[in-house]
């Protein structure tokens, strides 16, 4: 009996060990380029490790049973007439319930840190007199204390392109340029069908819906060029509906802005 328990403990610790090792050493995610990304990756790592423990544990149990309890050629008759075990069944009802509840609370915490539970408002100077009701989106990214004023951009999506309107400079661009470490606040609306704005490196996505503006805020943290991908089937050229977001140093951004602006403003 003691021997059996030692084997069980050995197998369980092996499953945990392998799962933790894989969880900490295998990176399945792209570059982290926004404030949201490291928070997301923290959640991913936890879920990945818990998932691995359950999955590997289940494989071990099934394969072991198939091997250990396989019918030998000389065997006849049935296995043991075991119809259930209330204690075991209560254990594997309660433990998963606790795990699921903890994951739920934790992911609520993650979502809150991403700013998901904040009130939806779009900090847009031009429409402050008549605030429009916006009821979907991700309002605020986590605040790193660096950015002062939001950079407001209006996004319109159509088959099969994104257009980015910079109201301050009164110009429209097909590329999204933003300064690094600056909170960006986007109001998005579609001209035809449903589209979606997705930047994998930022770990954010929001549908762009005709007739109902949505908002999406984020703070990029890493200079570079990342893809903006439409993630909602929008027609034959859906796969080609991509744009680029260019995160650059503030001076580079100012140069680009000043080159494109059509009204006299100073950044």
């Amino acid at each position, binding site marked *: 009996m003691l021997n059996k328990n030692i084997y069980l403990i050995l197998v369980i610790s092996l499953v945990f060990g392998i799962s933790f090792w894989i969880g900490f050493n295998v990176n399945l995610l792209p570059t982290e380029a926004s404030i949201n990304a490291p928070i997301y990756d923290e959640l991913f790592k936890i879920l990945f490790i818990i998932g691995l423990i359950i999955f590997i544990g289940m494989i071990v149990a*099934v394969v072991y049973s198939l091997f250990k309890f396989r019918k030998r050629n000389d065997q006849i008759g049935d296995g043991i007439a075991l119809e259930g075990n209330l204690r075991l069944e209560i254990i594997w009802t309660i433990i998963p319930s606790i795990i699921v509840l903890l994951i*739920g609370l934790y992911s609520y915490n993650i979502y809150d840190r991403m700013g998901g539970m904040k009130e939806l408002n779009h900090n847009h100077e031009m429409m402050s007199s008549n605030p429009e009701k916006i009821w979907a989106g991700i*309002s605020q990214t986590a605040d790193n204390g660096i950015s002062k004023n939001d950079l407001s951009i209006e996004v319109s999506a159509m088959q099969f392109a994104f257009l980015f309107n910079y109201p301050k400079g009164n110009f429209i661009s097909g590329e999204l340029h933003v300064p690094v470490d600056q909170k960006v606040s986007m109001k998005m609306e579609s001209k035809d069908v449903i589209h979606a704005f997705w930047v*994998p490196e930022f770990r954010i*996505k929001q549908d762009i*819906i005709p007739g109902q503006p949505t908002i999406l805020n984020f703070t990029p943290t890493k200079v570079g060029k990342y893809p903006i991908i439409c993630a909602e*089937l929008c*027609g034959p050229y859906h796969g080609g509906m991509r744009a680029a977001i260019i995160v650059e140093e503030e001076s580079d951004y100012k140069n680009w802005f000043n080159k494109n602006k059509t009204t006299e403003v100073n950044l």
Partner: protein
Amino acid sequence: MTISIDPQKSDKSLQPKGWLRYFSFSLDHKVIGVQYLVCGFLFYLIGGTLASAIRIELASPMSDFMPRDVYNQVLTLHGTIMIFLWIVPVVNGAFGNYLIPFYVGARDMAFPRLNAVAFWLIPPSGLMLVASYFVEGAAQAGWTAYPPLSITTPQSGQIIWIMSVLLLGGSSIFGGINFIATIIKLRRPGLKLMQLPMYCWAMLGTSLLVVLSTPVLAGTLILLSFDIIANTGFFNPVLGGNVVVYQHLFWFYSHPAVYIMVLPAFGLVSEILPVHARKPLFGYTTMVFSIMGIVVLGLVVWAHHMFTSGTPPWMRLFFTIATAFIAVPTGIKFFNWVATLWGGKISINSAMLFSCGFIINFVFGGITGVALAQVPFDIHVHDTYFVVAHFHYIVYGGTVFIIFSSIYHWFPKVTGKMLNEKLGILHFIITFIGFNLCFAPQHWLGLNGMPRRVAEYDPQFQFVNQISSLGALLMAISTIPFLINIFLSMTNGKISGDNPWDALTPEWLTSSPPPVENWKGEAPLVEEPYGYGKKLSEQN
């Protein structure tokens, strides 16, 4: 109250005999079950061909194999055919019709004529759906048919798609009503509800979901068709309609539809494992309660398909918790199945291997499902290949594996012949490797930036996509040993005898193949369908 189970002197004697009855408006539940299965399998081959076309297109990053709009038609037809013409009719209609009357000790379903109508709605609506390609092109808005895309794409294809799904939904509702009536009212005298084989409980739960949620889909699609042909504005934003309302209504059916596809599989695997492990089903009562728990929870989780759509933050939170909790009753079932294997005398045969493959694949799909239920997690991977991989692990790795397992298990009952085990194990190995090779890499693709439903993609994903396509090729090849096995065994198979597996569930207590009206005399009263081990001690 007594329920008559006398052989009815019905017009069944006038029905054609031999193979011709499979092409007739037969009222025999066993004939209808086989009709469902064969018809479903033919559509599976069509849907599989479309899947192969998708994987060929995705073997290269450019859209070069077929025109872009045809690609969207292919993916729409693939999804619709696999769901509405293969999985739902087969796990519900085929196995339900064949097995439920045996399990409750009846001579047929409660409404045999309605049953035949339910089946005969399927071939014409399926053919109509496929034929819509040749009119002006099939529907191309995905199987979800989200407006406004479904309103703005060519009308004929979309309208035929709606008509076809409405008829298939009708067929599904007829079947659901029939199963509920049969299980509740046609039980043999003396047979208690808690003595029924688990598949009856699974079908009772599934049929409740069908009857409660399918009418919502029907209503939604009728409103959508008004928007398309009569220029109404229910969902058309140009006319003041709301596109998000459509998504709520659609997913109110289509999330329970997932359980309509997997709950019967849960029931089937509960029948197969005890027979081949020679052990009673572990935890019968908790299994029943977890099925009903899944039914109740399954009705209140639909908005998790809309986390990145127009959903306010509080709603996102509620649906996260509700969805994640489905893992609890589902988890109970998986632990119970493993406990059923534990300490058994397991025959390693094709049916057992496919069932164990199901456990492993489904646990993986369940784990990614719990992850996807978390709003912050979903916001990154929603509408990407991660989701595609997740639901194929559920419906292919889960349900289709169980369909194959069930075919290996019940083929001797239906035909009186054994299937070839060597070909069966070969079929399992190729399917298992091909399936995992095809879908496991897609998780990585989704996490790293490949959206779903695209014909072209970033060239950095080419290698992983080619691995996935190779897996799809193996899956296509895996049907060859299966089909050879079926044809060889039908013509030259070993005679199985009435009960080759020594099983205790009622369908094995009659001849193989069973006679019309199921039993020569009175239906046997099976109080312990899983009494393995006990039988032995009694004999001793």
